[in-house]
Each structure stands twice: as structure tokens, then as C-alpha cells.
């Protein structure tokens, strides 16, 4: 949309410039490296706003000043500057951009060329996200985003992701970036009823995406004011271009399996360990201990329960799109069907989507457009990690108990823990979504350079969750259980902007933006819950005898009113100055603090434009830029500023209690009328360079983000009746370094490109009233002087060689076998020291190959399930194989204490189950072959490409759990419970073959 914006602008300017004196007409053609005409390329007279764009055949014509140079650019291609000279024809061949130095970049409420940009942004294109076996686009760009850490958290399809742009900027408010699709902020927070989030961005078909821009520093993001502190992700969908109609058909199919399975004891090992544990606990006959728990000591079975929860999955996608148009009307139309059968039993995701993006020029000055999409997705979900129904929890079942009852041949119900395969046989857990992202706009150019634009967008989300567990399942009890939840989120925005571009005295270019925006979001939810079904064939709550407490309806909403402006100024295209400001008001803030002002300023110096570097044989591009600005974070919940009373039930009566109620969960939080946004002041210094005609290019950024007025839930003493208050207290800091490099190593018939990026971020809580202790079985804390989510608690000191007791460190460094005497200390850090990725691509004739590797280094993972599964036979949960190394005789040196049934020898939450979480992952390998044109001849088929892809091909890690990319959300979505594994499913390793045909 933003590109269109500029295109229209230049059309307008072209017409206006005809009247000017001393100009002359030129024409030409822009072709790609394959010689085919490139439509929609921007051709701009250098130093002016006079320009045009190429037609379907790549042809253009333009009237220019004598001696002019033309800047020819298009997304995905290297820009070129050509001197017009004396001829009237200019032919240009554009090279596919390997370095992306001069591409057009989507920014807030507009576009800019990368060279003119004074902020820090990362832009990705359609090629980065197309045809990847993922649910949502963020999963496809892992490893390609310096400064942005994307953690998939779990292998569940459609699960919420954890995305951090330049570190965690908040402790209790959201840390997820603001997502803006085609100019409209969309609902990106989970709205489902489950503890573990769904990712609402899975409703956007990745194949519809033209570009993804991540605004990282204050200069680029401050235009989004109170919601910019976590970064802003701008997604632009594909547009039709003037020219011959293009038809694309794509298909892929692949299979997937778990990246890794944790290893557990087999039947013989299990019996050995637990017999020993029982004897050590005082049993004369270990078989008695088995019998007490319903286990058969003489069982002939050796079941692999780990395998029972995982399976081979598949992915398949059908993709069809048509685009084209003429000078008046352009269109892009697409439909996609995606079907993924997950590697976790019961997990499946299907999505069908359709999109129509339409642009029409009513006149040269007036344009309208509509982007409209409709998505239907169906997600057969996996229960949350901390649920006996989670198939990964099957690994806790003793191998001596069989999966099927030997007599009835039905699923065995007499297992130590619930055999949750019964849920799949007799139930469903489905989240179905209807989603529409739509935007309509009107632009008007009353005079040269001035564009008035009004746009209105609506993001309509309808989620229908349905859970059914028949009688005989654990949740179903004796009569069956059903739950149905209907959520409707209507989120609408209107943006009204005026943009004015002009150049004064040739040397001074201005780009001015002013605007107003209003957003309102309303969520309505209705749920029904029931028990008492006649039999398992009745699954709707209409058939439930008892409607239980989960039956409810509720509503929530928020609004924003914003005014904003931006000024970009360039002097001789060398010295760049930019400033932006936003005035934001929100219903979320306390009455005393309803409006806030945010803004940023930045400077840039294009050193390569200076005479001393111009035409330098080594350095062809060099830019130094710096920015400073203030942004906010408003994601604090909608009514946190108020003290509230909510309903509470007493049998058939209803009372009130001084608490807020969310989905029936009461929170005793006292209100704070002074509550306001969280402020982040960010300084960024960046250097961009291109060497050897951009054969080697790169970007280095250093930044410091100081966040103050942290929206913290300060814990209050329980004794006055309240648990917390949300306050603007506390400070934290993120500082970091991002480096990305890209090299075109060979540029002949064979083209070989190598790239890489690495990001360092150091998070530090600099001011905090009281430590925040996540509690439960977690180690997560927030403490002043430590990074967010620091692991803090008892330090495990191994095993006493004499007694086999588990030992812990005390405050004075000595060891104790009494966990209560252990001191609380820092145990680890779930935040990585650095993250990044490496990419390479090779093309030769029709072949193309690309590879993406992703790495995370220096973070710790705590296996919260360790106190059940790696605890030297304390209870009858099956144990991980490393527990066989238990202490047996005095003098044994080992880390695994003596096996003692029920004796809590080493069960205390401690550093015992912390391990390093560093990994390097072969993220994506794709080999493609495009059939030669000669083969097509005169057939309607124009292009054909076959490819094979391996996703998550290998993972190199020392983590002994399932998958090191883990962040269980089961303990609540608290930002500071990081790096905790709790029966969390691994990611999928996928191999697929695909074909794309163009007509």
C-alpha cells in the first residue's frame, strides 16, 4: 500500500512537471537479470520527487531536467543510478538484491528508501516466508532478524510465540511487539480461554506477505507512541501490479517428526531402580510398594510411553494466486489451504484463506483501494503442558504398564497416571477461528507533493473453542464434560494523514507527515460449560444435564486517540535529519494520566556521498546514523487503574468481593489512579556500509534502552487483603549490539551469497521495590541487579558419597542434606548471551539452494518436570535414563542421590535440573530447480519450479530434554518465567517437496 502511495505521488508529479520548461522526454525499459521486463519499478529523477513507474513490460517514460540522473529501484532488487546523458533511451538491468541496501523500506505511515533512513529497521521479503511449513510468519523468519529473538516456546501447532525486539522491555506488561498489517494495528494477543496462548497471527497466510518490517529503535518506532517500546512489526500484503495477469499455483507436501525425544527407563531398568528405591525405603518386599500403587511387579510388558505421545505428522499446502491490472485498476487475489497434522497425537491445524487486494485510480489525483481477507482456521489443540491430558505427560507412565488392556484390547485405564490417549478416543479440543483483516483507503493529491489519505481498517476475530471429554475420561468423569467458548474481537482503526514532499533550492528535501488516529477494540465472550451427557454420542452442551460454572459472558475493551507528526529532512542527500512526535491517549490509563507525548529525533550522514569517498573503489556506501527517543508500553490490561468489585458465588446466591475478575479468576489488586504507560528512552547508533560495489555489505547497531515507570505488579502484603498493585515503579535496561553482514562471494554464472547476523542483548533490572518470585515449582525471579527471569533458589551440591543424600549449599558455602537450610542464590540466566543466524544461497542455471541456520547461546533451561521424572525414584513416575547413575554404595561418586521411595531425597526445587540451553539449528534447507524457459516453448505454462525443503533438519545442543527451544507457558504467561520446560512438546522436523507453476 505504501509503495502505491509513492507511485501515485510520482505519477502526479510527472503530470505536473510536463508544464515545466527546459525539460526533455526520455523513455526506456527496465529488465531483470533474465532479460524479462520488470513491472512496477520506481524511476525517480535524482534529487527530486519527479518520477514514474514501469509498466507491465518494464517500459517507462519520463520528462527530466538536462543532465539528470535516474534512480531506478524496486523491492527485492538493487537500486541503480543511471546518468541520462544525451540519448533519449535509457535501458536498465536490475540485479536481484543480495544486500538489500537500497530497497524501499516500509515505515510507520509511509515508505522510505533504506539510504535515507535514519532509524534501525529490519526488513524481510516474501521470499523469507513463502512456502515454509509453519503456522505463522514469525516462525519462518527465525535466524534472519538481528536484534529480534523469536522463540517458538513449544511444538504445539499454532501456539503463541515469544518475540523480543531488543530484549524484554517490561516485567509484567506485555513484551510482544505491536503488529500492524497494512497500516492497521491488529489483535495479536491471545484471546483463548486456555492458559497457554494461541497465536492470533496464524490467521495471516504467510504467502500473502510482501514485506515484513521490524522497527527497532526509537526513531523508527516512536510514531507509534505509547505502544512502540517493544518494537513494531509492519506487515504489508501483496499488491497487484500493472501488466499481464500472472497466475501462480503452488503445492507442497511433507512429513514431520519430533526433533528429539527424551530417553526414559525401559521395563527392566524401571524395575531395577524402583525395587532398590523400595528396599531403601524400608520395604522387605519391593513388590509391596509396587502393589500399593496398582503396579504389577511381575508385569511382562515393556511399553514405550514416550512414543505413545508423539507420531509422524504431515504438512500440505495448496496455494493459488492471480495478480495484475491496468493503469486504472490493479488486483491481487489469492486462496490457500494449509493442513498440518502435528507430531503430537491429537494435534492438527488447518487453514483456508482468501484475500483480495484492490487498488483503483478514480482519477490521477484520487485513488481508492480495499484489502480484504477472510481466514478460517481449525486447530485441534493439545492440552496445556501442566495437564494430565498432555500427551507428553505419558512419559511419566511406568513402562511395565501396557498401553492397551491385554484382555479387553481397549486402552488401558489402570495406569499410574491418566492414560490420556482416552481423550483422543472420546473427545475433542478444537479452536476454530474466522478472521478478517480489512482496510479501505482513499488518497487525494490536491497539489504536487501533497497527499491526503484516509484509511479505515477492521480486524474481526471470531474464535470458537470447543472441548468435549466423554464419560470415562479424566475430565469427563462419570458423565462427560463439555465446554464451548465463543470470543469475538472487533478492533477498528482509522488513520488520517497528510504527507507533503518538496524540495527547496535543489539541496533541501523535505518529507512532512501529520496525522490523527483513533482505535477502539471490543472483546465479547460467551461460554457454556456442562456435565452430565447421556452418552458419548452427545457432545453439545444442549445435552448436558448440568450447566456448570464455566458458563458466562463477559466483555472488555480499550481505545486510543492519537495525533502524530514526522519531519524528514535531507540536505544534498548527505545529511539527514528526522523527527517524530506522537500524542497518545488511552482508556487504559488512570484519569490523572490519560495522555502522553512520545517522540524521537535522529541524524544520519551518508558519508559515501561526500567528495572524499565518492567513486571510491572500495567503499561504495557508508552511512552513520544516530537516534534518541521516547516510546511507551500500554499493554497493562484494560482496567488496571481502577479498584473494582466483582461478583463471587455462593451456591445459588451471588455476592461481591473487592477483586477484578477475568474469566472467573479473581485477582485482589488495588487500583491506582495515577497509572500510566511505561516509558522507554532509547539511544541507537548505527553504521551501514557497502564495499566492493555492495559485494560485501553490512550493518552494525549499538543501542541502549532505558525503561522507567515499569508497569509492575508490586506485591503487597497479603494481610491487608490485596495481593498486588500495578504501579509505575522500577527501571530496567537493555543494551546490545547487532551485527549483520552479507557477502556476494561469487557473482558469475554461479552466484553464491553468504550472510549472517549476531545480536547481543544484556538485560538488567536496575530498580525494583521487592523481588518478584514466580513461586510454585519454578525458579524464576525478578531481582534488582539481575536480568529478568533470573533463576534463583537452592543450589544443588550433588550427593554425599557416604550416605547417598542429596546435598545443597548453605549460605556459608558448606553443604547440607536439609533443603530448608539451603541458601537462596543465583543459579542461572534464561536470557541468551547472543543469538543470531547464518544464511547462504547458491544459484546456478536453474538451480537454487538456500540454507538458514539459527543459533542461541548462553541461556539456561530449567526442567521443571525434573522433580517428577529425574528424581532417583522418589515416586513411581518413570525416570529419565540418567537416574540409573544413582548412588548405591558408600564411596560412590555421582550426581544422582540414593533411590529412596517417597523419601524426598533430592526432590526440592533446586539447580539440580538446570542445564545449558545453547543450540545451533539447521533451520531451513531448500533446493530448487526452475525449468528452463526453452522447455516451456509456447505453452501457457511460463515458469515451473520444483523444490525440496528440510525444516529444523538438525539441532546441535547439550540440552538433554526434548528440544532446547522451549518456554512453557503453563505457569501463566508471566514475562519473567523464561526457559522453563514442563512436559513441553518438541518442535517438528519436516521434509517437504513442492512445486510452483506460473501461467
Amino acid at each position, binding site marked *: 500500500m505504501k509503495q502505491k502511495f509513492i507511485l501515485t505521488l510520482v505519477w502526479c508529479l510527472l503530470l505536473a512537471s510536463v508544464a515545466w520548461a527546459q525539460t526533455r522526454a526520455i523513455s526506456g525499459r527496465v529488465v531483470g537479470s533474465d532479460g524479462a521486463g520488470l513491472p512496477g519499478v520506481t524511476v525517480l529523477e535524482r534529487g527530486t520527487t519527479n518520477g514514474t513507474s514501469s509498466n507491465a513490460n518494464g517500459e517507462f517514460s519520463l520528462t527530466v531536467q538536462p543532465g539528470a540522473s535516474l534512480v531506478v529501484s524496486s523491492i527485492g532488487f538493487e537500486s541503480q543510478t543511471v546518468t541520462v546523458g544525451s540519448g533519449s533511451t535509457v535501458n536498465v538491468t536490475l540485479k536481484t538484491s543480495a544486500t538489500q541496501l537500497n530497497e524501499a523500506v516500509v515505515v510507520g505511515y509511509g515508505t522510505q528508501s533504506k539510504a535515507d533512513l535514519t532509524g534501525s529497521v529490519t526488513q524481510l521479503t516474501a521470499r523469507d516466508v513463502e512456502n515454509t511449513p509453519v503456522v505463522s510468519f514469525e516462525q519462518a523468519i527465525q535466524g534472519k532478524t538481528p536484534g529480534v529473538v523469536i522463540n517458538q516456546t513449544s511444538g504445539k501447532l499454532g501456539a503463541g510465540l515469544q518475540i523480543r525486539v531488543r530484549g524484554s522491555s517490561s516485567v509484567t506488561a506485555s513484551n510482544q511487539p505491536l503488529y500492524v498489517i497494512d497500516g492497521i494495528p491488529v489483535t495479536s494477543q491471545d484471546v483463548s480461554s486456555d492458559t497457554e496462548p494461541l497465536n492470533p497471527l496464524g490467521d495471516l497466510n504467510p504467502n500473502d506477505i510482501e514485506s515484513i518490517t521490524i522497527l527497532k529503535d526509537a526513531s523508527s518506532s516512536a510514531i507509534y507512541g505509547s505502544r512502540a517500546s517493544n518494537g513494531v512489526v509492519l506487515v504489508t500484503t501483496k499488491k497487484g501490479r500493472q501488466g499481464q495477469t500472472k497466475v501462480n499455483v503452488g503445492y507442497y507436501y511433507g512429513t514431520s517428526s519430533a526433533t528429539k525425544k527424551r530417553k526414559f527407563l525401559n521395563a527392566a531398568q524401571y524395575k531395577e531402580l524402583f525395587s532398590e528405591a523400595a528396599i531403601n525405603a524400608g520395604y522387605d518386599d519391593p513388590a509391596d510398594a509396587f502393589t500399593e500403587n496398582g503396579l504389577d511387579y511381575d508385569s511382562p510388558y515393556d511399553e514405550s510411553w514416550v512414543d505413545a505421545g508423539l507420531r509422524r505428522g504431515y504438512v500440505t499446502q495448496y496455494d493459488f494466486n492471480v495478480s495484475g491490472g491496468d493503469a486504472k485498476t490493479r488486483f491481487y487475489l489469492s486462496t490457500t489451504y494449509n493442513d498440518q497434522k502435528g507430531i503430537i497425537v491429537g494435534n492438527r491445524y488447518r487453514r483456508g484463506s482468501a484475500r483480495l487486494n484492490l487498488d483503483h485510480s478514480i482519477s490521477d489525483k484520487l485513488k481508492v483501494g480495499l484489502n480484504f481477507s477472510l481466514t478460517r482456521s481449525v486447530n485441534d489443540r493439545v492440552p496445556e503442558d501442566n495437564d494430565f491430558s498432555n500427551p507428553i505427560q505419558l512419559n511419566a507412565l511406568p513402562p511395565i504398564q501396557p498401553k492397551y488392556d491385554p484382555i479387553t484390547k481397549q486402552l488401558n485405564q*489402570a495406569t499410574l497416571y491418566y492414560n490420556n490417549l482416552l481423550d483422543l478416543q472420546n473427545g475433542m479440543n478444537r479452536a476454530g477461528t474466522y478472521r478478517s483483516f480489512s482496510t479501505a483507503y482513499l488518497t487525494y493529491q490536491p497539489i504536487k507533493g501533497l497527499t491526503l489519505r484516509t484509511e479505515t481498517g477492521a480486524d474481526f476475530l471470531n474464535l470458537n473453542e470447543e472441548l468435549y471429554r466423554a464419560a470415562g475420561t479424566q475430565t469427563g468423569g462419570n458423565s462427560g464434560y463439555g465446554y464451548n467458548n465463543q470470543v469475538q474481537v472487533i478492533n477498528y482503526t482509522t488513520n488520517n494523514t497528510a504527507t507533503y514532499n518538496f524540495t527547496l533550492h535543489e539541496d533541501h528535501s523535505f518529507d512532512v507527515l501529520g496525522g490523527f488516529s483513533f482505535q477502539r477494540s471490543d472483546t465479547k465472550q460467551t461460554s457454556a460449560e456442562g456435565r452430565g451427557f447421556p452418552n458419548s454420542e452427545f457432545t453439545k452442551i444442549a445435552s448436558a444435564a448440568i450447566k456448570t460454572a464455566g458458563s458466562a459472558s463477559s466483555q472488555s475493551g480499550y481505545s486510543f486517540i492519537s495525533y502524530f507528526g514526522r519531519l524528514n529532512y535531507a540536505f544534498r542527500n548527505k545529511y539527514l535529519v528526522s523527527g517524530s512526535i506522537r500524542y497518545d491517549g488511552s482508556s487504559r490509563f488512570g484519569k490523572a494520566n490519560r495522555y502522553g507525548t512520545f517522540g524521537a529525533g535522529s541524524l544520519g550522514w551518508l558519508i559515501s556521498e561526500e567528495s572524499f569517498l565518492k567513486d571510491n573503489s572500495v567503499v561504495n556506501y557508508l552511512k552513520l546514523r544516530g537516534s534518541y527517543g521516547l516510546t511507551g508500553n500500554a499493554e497493562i490490561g484494560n482496567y488496571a487503574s481502577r479498584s473494582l468489585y466483582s461478583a463471587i458465588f455462593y451456591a445459588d446466591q451471588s455476592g461481591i468481593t473487592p477483586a477484578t475478575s477475568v474469566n472467573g479468576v479473581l485477582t485482589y489488586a488495588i487500583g491506582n489512579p495515577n497509572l500510566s504507560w511505561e516509558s522507554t528512552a532509547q539511544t541507537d547508533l548505527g553504521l551501514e556500509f557497502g564495499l566492493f560495489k555492495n559485494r560485501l555489505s553490512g550493518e552494525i547497531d549499538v543501542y541502549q534502552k532505558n525503561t522507567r515507570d515499569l508497569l509492575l505488579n508490586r506485591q503487597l502484603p497479603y494481610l491487608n487483603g*490485596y495481593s498486588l498493585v500495578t504501579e509505575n515503579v522500577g527501571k530496567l535496561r537493555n543494551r546490545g549490539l547487532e551485527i549483520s553482514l552479507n557477502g556476494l562471494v561469487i557473482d558469475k554464472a554461479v552466484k553464491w551469497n553468504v550472510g549472517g547476523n549476531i545480536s547481543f542483548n544484556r538485560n538488567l533490572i536496575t530498580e525494583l521495590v521487592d523481588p518478584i518470585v514466580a513461586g510454585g515449582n519454578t525458579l524464576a525471579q525478578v531481582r534488582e541487579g539481575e536480568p529478568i527471569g533470573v533463576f534463583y533458589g537452592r543450589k544443588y551440591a550433588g550427593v554425599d558419597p557416604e550416605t547417598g543424600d542429596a546435598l545443597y549449599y548453605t549460605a556459608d558455602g558448606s553443604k547440607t542434606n536439609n533443603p530448608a537450610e539451603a541458601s537462596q542464590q543465583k543459579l542461572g540466566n534464561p536470557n541468551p548471551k547472543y543469538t543470531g543466524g547464518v544464511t547462504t544461497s547458491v544459484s546456478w542455471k536453474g538451480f537454487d539452494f538456500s540454507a538458514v541456520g539459527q543459533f542461541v547461546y548462553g541461556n539456561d533451561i530449567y526442567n521443571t518436570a525434573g522433580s517428577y521424572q529425574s528424581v532417583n525414584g522418589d515416586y513411581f513416575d518413570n525416570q529419565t535414563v540418567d537416574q540409573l547413575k544413582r548412588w548405591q554404595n558408600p564411596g560412590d561418586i555421582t550426581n544422582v542421590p540414593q533411590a529412596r521411595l517417597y523419601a524426598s531425597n533430592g526432590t526440592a526445587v533446586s539447580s539440580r535440573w538446570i542445564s545449558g540451553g545453547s543450540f545451533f539449528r539447521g533451520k531451513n534447507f531448500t533446493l530448487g530447480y526452475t525449468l528452463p524457459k526453452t522447455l516451456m516453448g509456447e505453452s501457457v505454462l511460463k515458469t515451473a519450479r520444483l523444490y525440496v525443503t528440510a525444516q529444523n533438519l538438525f539441532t546441535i545442543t547439550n540440552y538433554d530434554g526434548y528440544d532446547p527451544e522451549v518456554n512453557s507457558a503453563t505457569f501463566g504467561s508471566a514475562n519473567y518465567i523464561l526457559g522453563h520446560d514442563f512436559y513441553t512438546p518438541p518442535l517438528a522436523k519436516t521434509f517437504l517437496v513442492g512445486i510452483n507453476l506460473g501461467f
Partner: protein
Amino acid sequence: MKTIFSRSAVALTLGATLALTACEKQLDLAPPQSVDATTALNSEAKVGSAVIGLYAKLDEPSLYGTQLILVPDVLGGDGYVNWQGSFTTYRELIRRTTTSINNIAETIWRVAYQDINQANLVINALEVVASKDLKAQYEGEARFVRADLLFELVRLYGKQYNAGTASTDLGVPISLTPAQTLEDAAVEQPRATVAQVYQQVITDLQAAIKLLPPTNGFRASSYTAKALLARVYLQQGNYAEALTLADDVIKNSGKSLSPTLQAVFTNRNSSESLFEIQQNDQNNAGTSNNGLATFYANIDQLGRGDVQVLGSFSNQYGPTDVRGTDSLTADQTKKLIYIGTGPTRAPDLLRSGKWTSYGQNIPVIRLAEMYLIRAEASFRAGDSETALADVNRIRTRSNATPLTADEISLSAILRERQLELAFEGFRIHDLKRTGTNVTYTATDGTPVTIDITNPRFVLPVPQREINVNPSLIQNASY
């Protein structure tokens, strides 16, 4: 150029001003399913809703919904019940390996103080209650709830009341000020002594007895307050006062023993009920991770069967006693202890028949307890005749052989309390007040004795609470 600027500026300003006035009220979005605290208690009806809220809080799993009944039976459960469940928090309690971050210890504390504050808020809002009777009733109910919870807290988090040391032994903080602002809610307070807490409990209950009507539907009446005060005095060892109150309740409350004990639990609000938490299938303490039936019951898919009744305890019932067991399953048994039938538990394990439905009411104080208090206090005062009659009234109701005049003794009365009030949250409190050690036979057959003064029979002050209120002193051994 200038005109364009100024025109655009005017247009923008105009548009912005219009938009501002139209949208300003859009920023004032009230929460749809809650009300603002400033107006929440400003009428008689609203205060009445808050009083219902006081009782609703008592049904939370952290209070009588589960923990205040279950925890006293699990603490010191050796020889009595076995914890079979996967929740390590309970396993820590029964094995005395509890740590200061034990979630149960934290949530009982938290929710009890939430309700105490709500009681304070109700008392503070009484001036808008126009009806004099209603005003007295509401105050009585609020003081009853506050006293009840302070009593539960001091029993769990403090040492057993001992007249010699109660004025130095640490109890729990006493919160009497309604928290309405952030400043109120942030006040830190040290632990009061056990004596101070008991004094506050007694003061509140004495006031409640005066304020409450003699009957009050299924809510607290003056006799409920008297019955609770009798329990408090008994715990304190003030047998004379306990006797007077128990006697008063038995004679004047109009309550009578239910024909069967089973009916007290399967029916709602039986004739012997003095205070009962009201539940139904929709509003109850929980059906999967909380709730008494969830942990006790083991009837096919109903309940987790986490609490197993040990044979060493069920053997104490006589063969005819319907409170004991006939080793039949729930659908066949005529007795109160049955054989579980849940698929994931070993067969042939005993379960309590008191908690078998998620939506059943939870009797907190019933007349049988008053008879047993009167029996014990009378016996201690030398009146073994009353004691014998009261104990036998309880025994014969359940078809147990009546005791003879030779058999009545303090230990017989105390054993009768255990038999009658089993799985109702009395065990550890009775052991503590009578100084009875926990004894059981280990798996290898050796007898084990755990001293009742073991510090692990006292819950830890939640670590989280100490973190934010450092003036709190932790209990011994944590």
C-alpha cells in the same frame, strides 16, 4: 506554499478538534462486569451482597472448600491417611518435608486475609445500612467470619495455645483496618502473639453472639458463633467456658442429631448443622484440582482418590459401627468408608464416604461436635455421667456399641472425637491440644512416634509474605 501549509494546518486542527470532542468520551471505558470500589458498598443492598461474598470466600478451595478441612487431616496423617496424589505440596505436609514456599501454606494465608479484609470493609460500610436489625446482623456475620479465620490461621501457623507461653508465642498478624487505598493495602505488620490472636477471636465472637439473630437461614446465627466459641475455648483448654457454650447450643439452638451421619453429608443443611458451607453443582470448590470430593472420592471417574484411609484407622471402628467399613464399594456399602473403584488407583483401598460429590455442602460445625465438647469438658470437670450419655448418643446414632460406665475415659472420649469427626479437619488440632504424639507402624513393621511438638506440624509463614513484609518472623525449622 505558505497558504497550503496554513490551509492544511487549519484543516487538520479543525478535524482534530472535532475528533477530540467526539472521541474524548471514548477514552472513558468502564469495566463491563465489575463496579468501581468507590460506589460498590454505598447502599444497604450492596453491603448485603458483600456479606454474601464473605461466605462465598469461605468456600474457596484455600479455605473450607478444601484446605481448612483437608490440611489438618493430612498434617500428621501417619497411621490415619495416606497421600497418594501427585501434588507434592500435600506430600510435603504429610511427610513433614514442607518448605516455606509450599503453595498450600501460601494460599490459605492469602485467601483468609482477603476474607478478613472483606469483613473489615463490611464493618466499615455499615452506616449505609438503614435497618437496625440488618445492620447488627451484618456486623455479627462479618465479626464471625473474621474471628473464624483468625482462629484457623493461629491454629495452623502458630504453636498450640499454651497459657504459659501464649503471650510470647507468635501467632499471626491481626488485621482490623479496612484496606481501601494503596496506602492501606501496603501496611506492614508483625505477627501478634498467640494470646493476642485468641483474645481478638474471643472478642469478635462475643460481639457476634450479641449481634447475630438466633436463626439466620443457612448463615451464621448467634448459636453458630457460640458453637465456634466453644470450639475456640476447647482448643485453648478453657473447658469450663467450652462446657457452658456447648451446653447452651445443645439445649437452646433447636438443633438435633440427624438420624444418620451419612445424611449429614449427602443431604444439605441437616437438623444437626450449625454452620455449613453451601455448594451446588455449579458453584463449588472444584472438580479437578481442588475440592474435597476431588481428593477423597474414588468412585470410578469421580475423584482422584488421593487420600487413602488406612486400615490402622478404620480398624478402630467396631464391627457394627456404620462409620467404619464393610469393605464394599461405594455403590454397595452401607457404611461410611468404602473401597475405591477409580481406574488409576490400586483396588481394595479404603476411602472416606463423607466426601463423594463435588457439589455437596460442607458441614463446618455440627451438633455432634457440641456433644463431644460437652462430654470432654464434663468429664474433665468430674461429671462422667454426662460424658457417657453424650458419647453414647453419638455412638448409638451410628449403631456402635454403647460404652459402659467403666469404659468412659478421657482417651475414650478423644478417640470418639476422632471416629466421629474423621476427615472433617479436626485431627491435628486435637492431637496438638491434647499433646498426643503421632504414632504409626513403618513399612518394615517398626513402631514410630513423632512428637506432636515437631515444628513441621506448624505451617510455615509463606516465604512470599516474608519477602514483602520482613517484619514477619518465620516459624522454627523453616
